[in-house]
């Protein structure tokens, strides 16, 4: 962090993203919340409209508050390979990977995306702060790292027409970018980085730029997309999309291991349904390896489930049971009515061995009707994947609309 902090910084508790003024222009409801020190919109106009921009046209979400780190040096690959459970030798320059990372106990600290921007340089983008983790991992490695959260402005540009709009903006060959590709493009003020990635389970891109390029970029997007009903969106709309896409969130679906105080309250990648990122046989040591090997042999405590919930009442904070009025076997961590899948869905955790695909489990749902609390039992089916996973998410080149 190179930014000098003003001695008067305390006069405002919140920070303002470089997109703040632009967002403010679209704000009709004045609903904001804090995210990593920044004030960000919860809703700008209407959550449903904002959500449908993600699925129908194109949406803009301010990603600036994400924790961003740059890691570089001769041993950057070795460093990343020890930090992350994925096999980082497989991540080529110009590619992005979703990953989680663990502590020695094999418990997930956070998840995020890692960008290989050069042979010996990576960017790491995470929900929570990672300096302490990067610091302890750096002992004995010939690398350097810095936090660049405040130096990089970022936009998540998601939706079926996002590629078309970027093409309109003159980003040449952007349609040839595959899922998880990253490329640099010319833009006034210097190159910007664009990755085909997102948190919506849909076609989309993330744009990374200098703070001073934020407003010009915003204007350029609106300019190029004026025919497509682009919408800036708040956190609520994104939340629906990510649950629909079956993606987990730190501090919602799991408690970051390094911030977890109570013994046994953290979760392993296996327990978060992230088996596929753990490469136990990659031949080098990575954090959590020994514990995860053991867990693989001895079995996990919980299973992550994506549930199709009967009825239309969302299973927020519901307990899960093996049968109606049966034994409590788990709980729901995220739940929403999925507007595109047209399903009542939930993400949650059940004790092993419950929760295999197709299993029926029960949720006890509490909900209010005109201030009066009701309770109902809802039959839930364990789904074999996310409720929303359209082919256009990965199709290359993407269709225009």
């Amino acid at each position, binding site marked *: 962090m190179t930014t000098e*902090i*003003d*001695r008067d910084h305390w006069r405002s508790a919140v920070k303002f993203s470089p997109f703040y003024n632009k967002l403010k222009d679209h704000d009709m409801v004045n609903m904001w919340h804090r995210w990593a020190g920044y004030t960000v919109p919860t809703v700008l106009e209407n959550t449903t409209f904002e959500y449908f921009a993600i699925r129908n046209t194109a949406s803009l979400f301010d990603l600036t508050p994400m924790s961003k780190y740059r890691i570089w040096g001769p041993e950057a690959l070795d460093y990343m390979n020890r930090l992350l459970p994925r096999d980082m030798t497989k991540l080529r320059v110009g590619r992005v990977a979703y990953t989680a990372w663990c502590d020695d106990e094999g418990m997930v600290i956070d998840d995020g995306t890692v960008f290989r921007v050069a042979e010996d340089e990576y960017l790491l983008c995470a929900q929570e*702060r990672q*300096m*302490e983790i990067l610091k302890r991992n750096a002992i004995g490695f010939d690398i350097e790292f810095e936090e660049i959260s405040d130096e990089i402005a970022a936009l998540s540009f998601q939706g079926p027409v996002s590629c078309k709009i970027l093409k309109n903006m003159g980003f040449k060959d952007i349609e040839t970018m595959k899922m998880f590709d990253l490329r640099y493009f010319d833009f006034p003020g210097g190159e910007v980085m664009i990755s085909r990635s997102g948190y919506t389970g849909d076609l989309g891109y993330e744009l990374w730029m200098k703070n001073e390029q934020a407003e010009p970029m915003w204007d350029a997007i609106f300019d190029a997309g004026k025919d497509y009903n682009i919408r800036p969106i708040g956190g609520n709309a994104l939340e629906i999309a990510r649950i629909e896409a079956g993606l987990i969130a730190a501090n919602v679906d799991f408690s970051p291991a390094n911030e977890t*105080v109570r013994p046994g309250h953290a979760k392993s990648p296996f327990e978060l349904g992230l088996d596929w990122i753990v490469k136990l046989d990659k031949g080098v040591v990575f954090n959590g390896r020994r514990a995860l090997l053991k867990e693989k042999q001895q079995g996990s405590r919980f299973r992550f489930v994506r549930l199709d919930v009967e009825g239309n009442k969302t299973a927020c904070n519901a307990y899960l049971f093996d049968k109606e009025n049966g034994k409590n076997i788990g709980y729901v961590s995220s739940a929403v009515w999925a507007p595109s899948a047209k399903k009542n869905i939930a993400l949650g955790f059940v004790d092993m061995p419950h929760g295999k695909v197709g299993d029926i489990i029960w949720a006890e749902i509490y909900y209010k009707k005109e201030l009066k609390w009701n309770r109902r039992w809802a039959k839930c089916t364990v789904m074999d994947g996310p409720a929303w996973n359209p082919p256009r998410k990965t199709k290359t080149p993407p269709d225009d609309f």
Partner: protein
Amino acid sequence: MGPPTKGNEAMKKYDVIVIGAGHNGLTNAAFLAKAGLDVLMVEKNDYIGGASVSRNLHKDWMYSNCSYVCSLFRPEIYRYLNLGKHGLQVVTYNGGFSLTDCGDYLGSYSDHDVMRREIQRHSPIDVDAYDRYYTEMAKWCRFIRPLLLRTPPDPTSFKIRDLDELRFLAKKFGELGHKDLHDFMRFFTISVGDFVDQFFTSDLIKAHKAGSAVVGTNLGPYSPGTAYVLLHHYMGDVDGATGAWGFARGGMGAVAKALAGAFQEHGGEIRTGSGVEQITVKNGKVTGVRLENGEEIKADRVVSNLDAKRTFLGIMDPKDAGEKVVKAAKKFKIRGSSGKLNIALNGIPELSALPKDSKLIQGDFHVVDNMEAYERSYDEWKSGTWSKNPYLDVLIPSLTDPTMAPPGKHFMSVFVQYCPEKVNGQDWTPELVKQFGDTVINTIAKYSPNFKSLIEHVEVRTPGKIEEEIGLTGGNIFQGELSLSQLMFNRPFPGYSQYRGPVNGMYMCGSSTHPGGGVMAAPGANAAREILIDMKISTTVPEDEGDD
């Protein structure tokens, strides 16, 4: 146990006499009275409160002249004794800062994001470390807190209750697992200096965090065992906010006043100006107390809220106490290391480093900005003198609590670490007391140009003065040092950690017993629970009720 019998006062026999109307004595007495016992509280001073006292020593100023903030006070006790009804209000305060020698400051902000930026302002690399630090502290607070309102087990005992309690502890440790146990042991044994070194690089941040860890101890920031004392200052909470500190509205005397109110509501009787000369014992059983004026008062049970040394070496016949207890009491460590200045001010002192409209001044501020200076001030104390560059914890309660000083005027409480019991082996003289006071005032004046001109009255309290006035041996603010050898079942000493004294019917309820000092009231409550168990009365003394 029926209502108190009226009749000839001289013949009257109480169920229980509690000696010393400090907050623990009052808590103890209140719980006993609430259980229906006929309880008499005797206090040597003309006022109650012990070290939780507000005194009107200068015009319209109210001084919390011993303890001055409130955080550790157990919420369960507040609730069960209905202290709100008796006028106790604990108000959180915010702010606080450390002043640096180069004219800057490190602020304590309650807003997490602002706090992070403030850390970043001084040392970017330490920002996330700050969160890690708090996660670790939260871990140990959570571990320790449920133990506060429990009686420690006797590790040598085979009694079912002790074995159960040992099993409870073993289970808690078991839950920690190998690595957390290591961290815990480490935390319990290392110095606060080493502890903060694990997290921070900035000396200022280290000193800011480590400050409270040596408060009231006879240790330096690099002495092993001081990290735990840090926890002792963190594990409190106000309205569920762990680590938050507050003022008792009206000064710390309000705590005592409310406890006394609860006690009297349940029929308790308080006699001030009644110092106890001796706990009377006959045939190995307590019979009552003899006051300094010769009066004898009878009771089946006597509870001493005095420190272990004063109790066993002062108001008990050594023959009654027994050789072992006398020896153990002599070994009890209760050395004072803190002084205090209470100052009446004509206005708010200006601090050159602080922005004019900053609210930080409502919190406590410190003036040591590096660990070495801190440790060196400890070396001075070891060599028998007060620190020339002392650690100060300065608070102006009247900025938060309007009852403490006349409008526009202020009360300033200055806690000073280190200050010896005796100066180079000699008793304090008025001249030395003045010099000590001047050291402190000049230290503050270095950072505040108008400070001296605002002073209207100063009360200087050395450990000796604290001992003389409220009876804390050596002036030790915790009624016994908080070292590994004097915690849990070792407090005050092995075999006597369960609040029972060496003779039948004799009990202890002061901070010399588990869980130790601070205005926590847990020792008093725990002792009441044990007494009620002995009397086979169903007890209403709460255990920890936080679901955590």
